[in-house]
Structure formats: C-alpha cells, structure tokens
C-alpha cells in the first residue's frame, strides 16, 4: 500500500510536470497580454509533430546506420524544435492577434480568434498528416530503475527536472531581467507603457517566443513519454492545463506551476483512492470548489476586467 502510494507520487510528479509546462505557456501570454491563448495546446501538439519530423529526418539522413547516443539526438532536437515552434508562435501572433490588437478590438474577439487558430492547427495537421496516429521515435533507451518495489524510468526523471528547470528559468527571466520587467510593466498598464519608450510589440513577440519554446520542450518530452501522436492530442491536455493555470492564479508564474502539479496530484490520487471511473468528475469538482472559494486562484490578484 505504502509503496504504491509512493509510486503514485512519482506518477503524479511526471504527469503534473506536463500540466505545469503547458500551464506556464498559458500564463506567460495571459500575464502580458491578458489574452487566453487557446491555441497553446495545439502549439504543443505541433511541437510534438515537429519533434517527430526532425528526429525521423535525423535518423534517416544524418545518423543513418550509425549508433548514436540518444541524449545527443535530444540535445540537437530540442533547440531546433524550440526554434521552429517559436516561429509558429510569432507567426500566429503576427497574423491573428496583432491585427486585432491594433484595431483596438475587444479582448473577447481575440480569444475567439485564438480558438480558431487552435482549430486551424488541428485540422491543418489532419490535412497534412492524415488521421493515422504517428509513433514518436524512441530516441532514449528507457531504463527502469527499481528499488524496493518502486519503479522509475530515466525519462520520468528527465521530465520532472525539465519542468523544474523551465520554471526556474522563467522566474529568473520575468523577475530579474530588463525584458522581464518590461513584460510585467505591459501587464500592469498597456496604455502608459508605450509612452515610456518601451517597444511593446517587441516585448510581446518575445513573450510568444518564450511561451512557444516552453510548449516545444513539453511537446518533445510528451512525445517521448507517450509515443502516440494524433492531431487532437493537445486539446484536452491544453484545456486541463489552462484550468490548472486558472486555479493556480493565472498571470502568476508560481501559480501556474503549482496549479499544474496540483491538478496532476488530484487526478492521480483520486484514481488511487477511489475509482478510475470518477477521476475527471471528482477532480473538476475539487477545482470548482477551490475557484468558488477563491475565484482568483491561489496566487492571482483580483482584476476588474478579466475576460
């Protein structure tokens, strides 16, 4: 009983890491633009596919035949996928969000646009790759470490470390750098800030680069952990991560990070103590109760105009 509880804590840490990494992406964009970027889950999906394409390419042309360390492949893949996913994020911001912002459209319309972008990404992928599930190539040989009835793979450790590192990195960027200060400033007052000579559009582009790179890291690691890719894989996990971010207090990095782990733990502990049939029911009831008691989430600050 005790070992399976500990095992479930490990499971929850891994699963929560994914929620956290995706929730951080939502949170960044929301924090700066007050925009709920509903396409984020689908950017995550595209990142997983980009990883799939790039690794397949690597194995076919670059490392064909030769035995190569999986860690090296990962070390090459991650930056490349991060770069291309950032391009996608910036492109979306440029064609879908910025025109609306410049026309002074109400935030509601931008959110609807974000939903559309998500659907375009899903269906574009469907058109491009067909509906068949794809197998993400196994680049790192999974090794199972067992001690005292507990089992943990090298991949799980990697995922948990990645979540912690990205969180620490974001905290650092937002709180300790000049551009982070600019991001916080835009969030605070987006009308006064341009008058201070801060290039708002540049800061927003940077935010999207950061958010999409996060989605890229999450997407590649997710592909490695759950190696079946399909065009709708980002939808539900994206929504849930969004909810996690709201419960943590959207707009606050610490809140999104903890919210992700909270949802991971709630989901997994419910299954281990009750029945798996009731997982989503009880999980979302708990989140609902939390929000009813504390509508701004754990770390959020009350704002008069949230969407």
């Amino acid at each position, binding site marked *: 009983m005790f070992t*399976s509880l500990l095992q479930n804590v490990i*499971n*929850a840490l891994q699963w929560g890491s994914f929620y956290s990494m995706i929730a951080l992406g939502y949170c960044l964009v929301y924090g700066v633009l007050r925009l709920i970027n509903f396409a984020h889950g689908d950017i995550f999906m595209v990142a997983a596919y980009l990883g799939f394409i790039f690794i397949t390419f690597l194995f076919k042309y670059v490392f064909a035949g030769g035995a190569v360390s999986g860690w090296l492949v990962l070390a090459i893949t991650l930056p490349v996928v991060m770069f291309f996913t950032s391009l996608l994020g910036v492109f979306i911001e440029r064609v879908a969000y910025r025109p609306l912002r410049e026309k002074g459209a109400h935030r509601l319309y931008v959110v609807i646009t974000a939903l559309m972008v998500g659907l375009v990404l899903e269906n574009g992928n469907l058109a491009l790759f067909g*509906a068949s599930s794809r197998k993400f190539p196994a680049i790192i040989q999974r090794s*199972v470490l067992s001690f005292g009835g507990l089992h943990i*793979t090298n991949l799980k450790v990697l995922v948990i470390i990645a979540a912690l590192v990205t969180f620490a990195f974001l905290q650092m960027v937002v709180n300790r750098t000049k551009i982070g200060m600019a991001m916080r400033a835009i969030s605070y007052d987006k009308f006064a800030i341009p008058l201070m000579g801060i290039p708002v559009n540049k800061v927003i582009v940077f935010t999207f680069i950061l958010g999409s790179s996060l989605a890229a890291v999450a997407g590649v690691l997710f592909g490695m952990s759950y190696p079946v890719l399909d065009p709708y894989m980002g939808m539900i996990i994206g929504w849930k991560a969004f909810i996690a971010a709201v419960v943590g207090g959207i707009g606050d990095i610490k809140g999104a990070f903890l919210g992700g782990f909270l949802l991971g733990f709630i989901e997994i502990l419910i299954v*281990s103590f009750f029945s798996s049939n009731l997982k989503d029911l009880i999980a979302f009831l708990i989140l609902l109760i939390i929000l009813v008691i504390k509508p701004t989430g754990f770390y959020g600050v009350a704002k008069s105009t949230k969407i």
Partner: protein
Amino acid sequence: MKNRKLLVAMVALLAVTMLFFAGCAKKEQVIKIGFNIPMTGDIPKVGEASKFAAEMMKEDINSAGGLEIGGKKYKVEFVYEDNESKAESAVAVALKLIEQDKVIGIIGPNSSKQAIPGGEVANDNRTPMISPWSTNPATTLNRPYVFRAAFLDPFQGPVAAKFGTEQFGAKTAAVLYNLDNDYSKGLAEYFTAAFEKLHGKGSVVAYESFGQKDQDYSVQLTKIIASKPDFIFMPIYYNKVALALPQAIDLGWKGNVLGSDSWGSAELVTLAGDSVKGKYFITHYAAAGAKGKTKEFIDRYNAAYGYIPDDVGALSWDALGVMVTGLKGMKEITGDIQKDRTALMESIKAIKSYPGITGTMKFDENGDPIKEAVIVKVSDDGQFVFQKGVAP
C-alpha cells in the same frame, strides 16, 4: 452594405448550382451501397481497410459486367462517407446515405460506439445494414434490418476468460478498459462476469478504466500491478495499447497480457513496438498461416495496397459478400427503393450459410453470425501467429 448583398447573392448562387449538379447525377442502372466508415478521427486505418476491401470487391463485380438480379445485370456503385469515428457523425452519415444517396444497403459503422446509433437509424428507416466489426449485442438486438459479420462481445468475454485460465494457468486477472467506449466497457463487463463464474467472486482483482482522451494510465497500472494478477485483460483499441503497454513495462510489469479483437490492426506493431511482442489477443482471423480463399484475399490486398490486411479488412469483405449474396438472392429490382430494401433484408435473412474468409457463418434470429474466434500471439518479428481456435 453593398458587400453583404453581394455575398448573399454569391452564396445563393453557389447553393443553386450545387442543387443543380445534385439533380443531374442519376439515371443509370446501378445499385448503390453506402459505407458508413471512420476515415478520419481516432481509428482511420479501420475505415481505410473497409474501403480498400470494398474497392477490390467492386472491381470483381463490375469487371464481370455487374450483378445479375432477376435476369438483369446491374453495376454497383459504392458511396463512402466518413463518420469521423464519432457517434453523432455516424447518425448523420447514415441519414445522408439513406435519404440523399438512396442506397439500397449500408456497410458499417465498424465500432460499436457508432454502430449502435447507426443501426438505430438504419432500422428506423428500414434500410439493411451490415456492420463488419461491431461486437456489442445492442447493435443488432431487436433490429430486423441490422446484421453483422463479427462475433459478439458476450461470446468474446468467455473466450478470453477460458483462454487466460488454460494458457496462463490463471486464477486471478485484472482489467484495464476505456470508460467512455461502449465496446471496451461492455467487453470488460462480460469478461469479468465470465472469469468470476470460473474462479469465484473477487478473482478479478483490479478493474480500472481511463477516458478516451487520457494519455497517462500510470496510476491505473500501478493499482493493477499492486494487486498482483496472473494476467491483465485489455479490451482497448490498438492506439491505446501503444500507450498502455510501455507504461505497464515502465512500472515493472513482466507478466501476461491478453487483448481483444480491437488490437487486430495492421498498425498495432508499428505503434506499440517491442512492448506488444509476446502478447496474445482474440481476433476474427489470423493472417499468418491462412489458407485457401483467405490467403487469396490477403495476397491480393497486399499486392494492391502494400500491407497485410487486418481483421477489419477481412470482415468488411465478408460483410459486403453477405450483402452481395443477399442482392443476388432477390427476385428483381423494382425501382421502388423502400420495397427493394425490404426485399434485400429478407434475402439476407434467408442465407443458409455463407462461406466467408473469416469463417463460415450463418445468421441467427438477431442477425448475428454463428462462427469461431481465433487467438493469436504477436511474434518477435511482429507477425500475428495463430494459437488456437475457440468455437462457441
């Protein structure tokens, strides 16, 4: 304002043009059969296999000059519609095929999740429907117009329980199933009932589920492994198998796993890789070691499409074969579509025995075939190797 008027005019024009074309395309001596299959969505390979098998059959019929019914030859035309592997789309597709395309009969939907509502629409509109793959009893129950080519879940449950007991010497078992899928849930229940009947109450030591869009099953598997079953029964789809098995291995599971007929896809080994090797599943036919007509079908399919057909392909071939046999048994095509549909239904009912490539079948009073199940093992080179046939 001007722009809007223009837009309205254009849309109206487009609509009229479409109506015009729809009106034009008819008048020829053809028999139309509709296909309600998943070409996108969760299990697109399933729809693809149905379509490929159908294309082969169409070629056979039309190159021979068509079907002879009541002394007249008719060419066949197949209408393929995508139900996206969704229940609501399956209903819409069935209605479209019946009302708009005026098909004489429908093949599909394949999974029970779509075949149950799809069958209701077909039966209410008195149109014969044969589901190749659906194994849930509700698909055909009290629906005289609905038939199927596959055996039933209540039959597959006891087969799984019996095989697990004999092959693995099992006294306990665990179940992992997909909660929001009629097929998976039904099969999990039938298996549990059958296994507990053999080994007493409580012999199914863990009974866990996950949702359709879930990707992480680690906690369910942790629970299952902690309960130390002799084997795990997984009545889930092949794309879920590819998620569940590696996770089970990561959590230290080294024991036996038995799957259901939903594993039987050509993509199983591609997706699940090494994790599925050495595992068993129940299916409708085994490609490795096939003989006679079955082998002929497999070779032709492989030559045309480049891979060994899975059970859906074979069952679609048989479902279509049954429908064609039914058509041949009709006295005449009257041209009154409703009359013809009823005549076709009666003709299918009257088939004494159909020698299909998945086994010889005949239909009982519910429109369900009486046939044999096959159990295969996934070999180290990814082949599905015949282990045992289990007769009802």
